[in-house]
């Protein structure tokens, strides 16, 4: 077991010798424009607690996989330090770091049987045959692969292959587990199942888990701590609840949650803010905080905006309406299903459900008292 400390880590691809991986497409432009070097990670500091389930999340190309690969030792570190427990691992080869990794494409050895796949690492550190057999058997029982031990991975289903990958990771008894989008190749149902299993596995092993995904649902549902990244920088670190309820900027606010937060230019709403909040440029609210009411209904919401229903998606338990008003187009999530297309409604919001951002898209904290009461 070990925590991980990342100190001032940067990653720059020198265009001459190292090839920039295809996945980092966002930054590729930079090569042509000014320099031959491409920076994908910019001076990141991160402290991953021992035994935590930390999820690195962000859009594709944000540098999260590069971070993971630097921790695993599969990618050189241009600058800074990576510590696993009390060991500085910058120059340690991947095999010496005692880290297990589960890959998106499983990365099983196709010509070996399940048993050989699992015991390959044990073989390499010269664990005696008897001991090896016992360990393989134990772990195969845990993940439910006993009957497939002599099968080759090609004959297994996606879920079974992922189990082999898990078994291969567990059998090493590593200090840290690293998961690189391990569930992306599975269908929705299996993904949900595996999610639960991974959470249980973490409970049982109590080892540090670092998990990379671009899927915010996975991040929200599994993490103790979420590290949200964009363009090679950390946008926010926090528990899922913190990140959802207290986003520090528009990127975080809009990345988490489906549909994402409605963010609009503040418009005339600014007249209702106190003078020292005049630098607010945007306001936002979560789709589930918007309430749709018929035009004629009386109520006591602080904000009321005349709107029109554009589209309606009925998802079963809830319905998502796309509405249009003077602030633009917004999504509203509600349990009401009876509004029809084109219907005129009022969008009602309470002031404490609003978020404010300045023109750099950073959060501005305003409490209710700074806002004048009144109805627009």
């Amino acid at each position, binding site marked *: 077991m070990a925590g991980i400390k990342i100190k001032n880590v940067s990653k720059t691809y020198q265009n001459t010798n190292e090839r920039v991986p295809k996945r980092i497409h966002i930054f590729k432009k930079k090569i042509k424009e000014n320099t031959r070097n491409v920076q994908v990670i910019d001076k990141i500091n991160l402290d991953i607690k021992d035994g935590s389930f930390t999820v690195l999340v962000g859009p594709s190309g944000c540098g999260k996989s590069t971070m993971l690969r630097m921790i695993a030792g599969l990618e050189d570190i241009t600058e800074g330090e990576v510590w696993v427990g009390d060991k500085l691992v910058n120059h340690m080869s991947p095999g010496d770091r005692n880290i297990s990794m589960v*890959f998106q494409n499983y990365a099983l050895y196709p010509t070996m049987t399940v048993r050989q796949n699992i015991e390959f690492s044990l073989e*390499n550190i010269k664990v005696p045959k008897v001991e090896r057999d016992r360990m393989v058997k134990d772990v195969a029982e845990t993940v439910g692969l006993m009957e497939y031990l002599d099968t080759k991975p090609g004959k297994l289903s996606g879920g079974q292959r992922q189990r082999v990958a898990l078994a291969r990771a567990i059998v090493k008894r590593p200090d840290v587990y690293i998961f690189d989008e391990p569930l992306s190749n599975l269908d929705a149902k299996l993904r949900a199942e595996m999610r639960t299993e991974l959470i249980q596995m973490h409970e049982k092993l109590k080892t540090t888990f670092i998990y990379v995904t671009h899927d915010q649902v996975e991040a929200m549902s599994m993490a103790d701590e979420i590290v949200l990244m964009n363009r090679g920088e950390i946008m926010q670190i926090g528990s899922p609840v913190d990140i959802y309820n207290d986003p520090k900027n528009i990127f975080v606010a809009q990345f988490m949650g489906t549909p994402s937060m409605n963010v609009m230019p503040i418009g005339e709403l600014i007249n209702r803010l106190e003078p020292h909040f005049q630098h607010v440029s945007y306001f936002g609210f979560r789709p589930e905080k918007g309430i749709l009411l018929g035009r004629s209904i009386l109520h006591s919401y602080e904000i009321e905006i005349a709107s029109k229903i554009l589209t309606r998606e009925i998802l079963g338990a809830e319905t998502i309406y796309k509405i249009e008003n003077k602030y633009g187009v917004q999504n509203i999530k509600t349990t009401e299903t009876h509004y029809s297309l084109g219907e005129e409604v009022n969008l009602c919001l309470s002031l404490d459900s609003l978020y404010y951002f300045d023109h750099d898209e950073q959060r501005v904290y305003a409490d209710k008292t700074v806002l004048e009461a009144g109805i627009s």
Partner: protein
Amino acid sequence: MSNLKKILTRIGLVAVIIFFAFPFVWLVSSSVKTVAETLSIPPTLVPENFQWNNFVSAWNSGPFLQFLINSILVTFGVLVLQVITVVPAAYAFARYEFTGKKILWAITLITLMIPLQLIFLPVFLQLSSWGILDSLWGLILPFASGAFGIFMLRQTFMQVPNEILDAARLDKASELKIVWKIMMPLSKPTIITMLLFTFISRWNDYFWPLVMTTTENARTLPVGVAMLRTSETGVDWNIVMAANVILVIPILIVYFFAQKRIIQAFTYTGVK
């Protein structure tokens, strides 16, 4: 319409088969004729009397056992050395970034384009200065590596997903182990094809042994067979053909067993 197309395709295919197979059928047929029948007009495709004895005569008309042993030693020597040199070279070209990689790769490819006839003289002089003319080493060493093999195997190695190598590195496997336990088993069809091509080209090679050897000590089967033609008593075509059949049999046997792998190598689309 589609039926007509099918029929035409079939006719075309049969024509191609006849075109390619006829010389071989003619070879086999002539190898069991009498001398007179090989030259008779009109020619016969099926011999009147099968002269199985031709094979024995061919075998006894020179030190063929020695030729055969030389052929086997040369061919297998080259095969072993090629595996030793080609696999690591292909792995390095496919998986490593190093200074001068592009230039080295270009040089490797250029060797594919230069005909042997152009460079045999300097190589001959080189081998002569080493004192290995008219020896098996002179036939083996110039072919100890091959650009074609490196090229083919590099392509296959490049298809192996990076994650598999990453996983192996995290599993603490050495590079040698990665090549031996992961890359080579994954590239089996290509390696077999490469070895088969080398086998055929070495086994059938006439030019190089002809240039490099002066005595029976190092001559191989193709040179031996060709020597039958220059015998002073005139050419016994039936004997020459019988010797050719003997020459070609090992290749047919090897092809028969490796056929499936060869097709795999050319239709190989990656690892799932």
